[in-house]
């Protein structure tokens, strides 16, 4: 099946664990170097999680101690009082909406450009792809006024539209290459059977492109979930803050109030969903993100 082969081509971008490794038995200094970086990576993260269960006094007196008794109260304080819960929900709404819109528009454009010949095809393609090479900072000032004039400043639809607009170019670039590799026979057969153009796209080509959609979908989700600059400028209403924004604001205000434990709890809550998703899908995620860089 061609479909499975395509899947392997994309997912296979990730590294396969080498099996003969176990037999070779690497030298001790190598393991030491590898372990050292693992500790450097993991220690700050574990430290934040442990600190989120400590009292402020324990945090201030000894950064290395374990909590005498776990303070679950920190978590509930961060979730309700410090509004992490609300920010979380805002992020889910904005990123969910933007991701759906990005994938729909991106795959439609990529498919139309990859499978149809018409005058201006290349022009449209480069119009999208060129935008990937422009820093968002350049657009920032005029973008603020465009969104303001449309009355979309600080609204969910405003953020969703802007997020999608800036995620579509890469999606087009990635899926364009992908749709080109799909075989045309199935689509032709569907046309002969009387399927409409949109029917062929939604019922035949889109399902065949699933591995590509998953890869670019994961890439987009992480990029949108971690977006900070756009909401900082376009989303000034604290009730609508997304998670990254809320956490940044919190680190300033909680710092003044010295509620360290609450801030550690907020930080851990922000990391948790990403960690859970990563543990569940780690091979797909690494494959998808590195494939995005290589293409």
């Amino acid at each position, binding site marked *: 099946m061609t479909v499975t082969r395509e899947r392997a081509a994309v997912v296979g971008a*990730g*590294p396969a664990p080498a099996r*003969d*490794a176990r037999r*070779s038995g*690497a030298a001790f200094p*190598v393991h030491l170097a*590898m372990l050292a970086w*693992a500790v450097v*990576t993991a*220690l*700050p*993260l574990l*430290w*934040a999680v442990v600190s989120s269960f400590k009292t402020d006094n324990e945090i*201030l*007196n000894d*950064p*290395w101690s374990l909590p005498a008794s776990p303070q679950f109260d920190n978590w509930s304080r961060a979730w309700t009082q410090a509004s992490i819960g609300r920010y979380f929900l805002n992020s889910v709404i904005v990123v969910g909406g933007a991701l759906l819109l990005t994938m729909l*528009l991106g795959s439609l*454009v990529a498919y*139309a450009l990859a499978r*149809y010949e018409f005058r201006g095809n290349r022009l*449209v393609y480069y*119009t999208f792809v060129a935008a990937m*090479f*422009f*820093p968002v*900072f*350049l*657009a*920032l*000032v*005029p973008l*603020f006024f*465009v969104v303001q004039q449309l009355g979309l400043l600080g609204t969910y639809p405003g953020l969703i*539209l802007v997020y999608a*607009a800036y995620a*579509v*170019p890469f999606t*087009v670039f990635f899926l364009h290459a992908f749709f080109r590799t799909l075989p045309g026979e199935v689509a032709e057969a569907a*046309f002969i059977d009387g399927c409409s*153009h949109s029917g062929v*796209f939604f019922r035949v080509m889109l399902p065949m492109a699933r591995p590509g959609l998953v890869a670019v979908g994961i890439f987009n989700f992480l990029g949108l*979930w*971690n977006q900070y*600059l756009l909401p900082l*400028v376009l989303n000034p209403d604290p009730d609508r803050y997304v998670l*990254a924004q809320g*956490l*940044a604001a919190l*680190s300033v205000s909680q710092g003044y109030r010295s509620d360290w434990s609450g*801030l550690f709890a907020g930080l851990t809550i*922000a990391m948790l969903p990403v960690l859970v998703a*990563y543990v569940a899908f*780690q091979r797909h995620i*690494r494959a998808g993100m*590195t494939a995005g*860089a*290589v293409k």
Partner: protein
Amino acid sequence: MRHGRWRFLAGALVPALVLHAVFVLSPYAQAFYLSLTDWTGVAGEARFVGAGNYARLGGDSLFLHAVRNNAVMLVVVPLVTIGIGLFLANMMHLGGHGGRRGIAGSGAYQIVYFFPQLLSLVVIAVLWGFVYNPNNGLLNGALRAVGLDGLTRSWLASPSLALVAVMAVLVWSSVGFYVVLFSAAIDSIPRELFEAALLDGAGGWATFRTVTFPLVRESVHVAFVYLGIAALDAFAVVQVMTVGPGGPDGATEVIGLSLYRNAFQYGKFGYASAMGVALFFATLTLAVLALRSGRRERLELA
């Protein structure tokens, strides 16, 4: 089969093109024009000042600090990140026995290394703000725990250390991604090449220099472009983590931060746009240089 073709094409392309034109193309185009005006945000009151904003950039000492800091990061962050990334990826594959692939547990190491890549830079900045805290932070706590009290510092408050501290965070957060990227590149090198090197008596370093590195060079180029673009940004980490932000005394100022402050705190929209244009040309130069040198050095594996 031709029936409905144009209707489908229009339906597929027009919504995305409208979105693209309104929120992406038009802001980029306006930015170039705005950078030539003294606009402060009041409709209809933008005065054309030609290259005036650009001339002022040259005399703005904080902006010059920002340019210098971005330039330092542009060199240091990619070099250090790629150095550590290549080292670890190579270790994973050639662990001790030149030619053999992979050490035990390399999959587990990659899982751990990669994780910071998934976190928002804001989360990373808040976390490292704690790590660097002089009194109860992890870093000084670790130094005290091993008896190196003399090395404890106020990392982010010291003008000579703050930029290093920022760069360390950027390196920390991106090494894992490049370990995975380089590792995949090394995986695709035919095994016979390593075996030939081993038979010729090449040690670990010689194998890396003559076999591995030339064949992963393209990935290294990609890495340079990506890390360079990240180093030209660095906005989130600086804005959330440093004192001021951008301090102490401009020591961690970056172009993005100057732009943000001038536009959205001082309302100097024309001037801020000039900074955006400067940043655009810096990014463009970087990409063009990297792509050109990449093409020349491409090695065919036949």
